[in-house]
């Protein structure tokens, strides 16, 4: 039993994506930027599940399954890169990640 419309779920999903996008753009701490990236991924999975539920198909659900798996791998590798960077430069602020600049 679902009461809300598909439109409502898509709006919530898009709003979450927009908030994550804002966080990626305005925050300086790499860890928080990474958290906001995860938020954007979760927002997209919400849209997929909503589409799947309202159309009575299984494809969106299975795709979310794969997104969860790949996101777990991505977080592990991303955090390892951040730790490796911190070892070299003693900071995780994006302003200091400028080795390729100029």
């Amino acid at each position, binding site marked *: *039993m*679902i*009461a*809300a*419309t*598909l*439109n*409502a*779920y*898509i*709006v*919530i999903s*898009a*709003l*979450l994506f*927009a*908030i*994550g*996008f*804002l966080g990626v*753009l*305005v925050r*300086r*701490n790499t*860890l*928080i930027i990474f*958290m*906001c990236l*995860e938020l954007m991924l*979760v927002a997209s*999975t*919400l849209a997929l*599940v*909503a589409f799947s*539920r*309202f*159309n*009575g*198909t*299984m494809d969106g*659900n*299975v795709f*979310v*399954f*794969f997104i*969860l*798996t*790949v*996101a*777990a*791998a991505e*977080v592990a*590798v991303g955090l*390892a890169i*951040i*730790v490796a960077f*911190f070892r070299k430069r003693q*900071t995780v*602020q994006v*302003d200091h990640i400028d080795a390729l600049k100029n």
Partner: protein
Amino acid sequence: MANFLFLFFAGFTVVCAAGIVLNRNAVNAAMCLLLCLVGVAGLFVRLDAFLLAFLLLLVYAGAVVALFLFIVMLLDTKGGTTPARSALAKGAGLVAFALLAAGVASLALKGRLAAPAAGSEPAVGASLKLYADQLFTLYLLPVEIVGFILLIAMIGVIVLSRKETGAS
């Protein structure tokens, strides 16, 4: 009642998501991410995707947020010494957010998504048998590939986090 639950979880999720962006402290931001994921899992339950709600809590709230907290505490980054981001960068970010939010608003006000009425379709996501049926027949190759990706990620993390000894 059903609509109240949707509104509650949706509002809770959006407020916690804003908390991630607005919190100065990285530990508090990770806690907001945790609450936000719990809200999304609630929305999944409202959409009858019980397995995915459970997996979201298990993988994201359990493993990923714990990993984030672990790294935040390990690195122990004290803010305050770095200068604030320039007003131009902040303004550009806010403009981009405003554009996306305007898109959301137009979707909410004028969007006409061609979907069947709520509840007219069967809740296929509630059936574990259907997941197994799909994952082990149609999506067997992607399942194998994802397993391989996890293996590569594990090896990659071990290589990345190895202490450089200078030898070799």
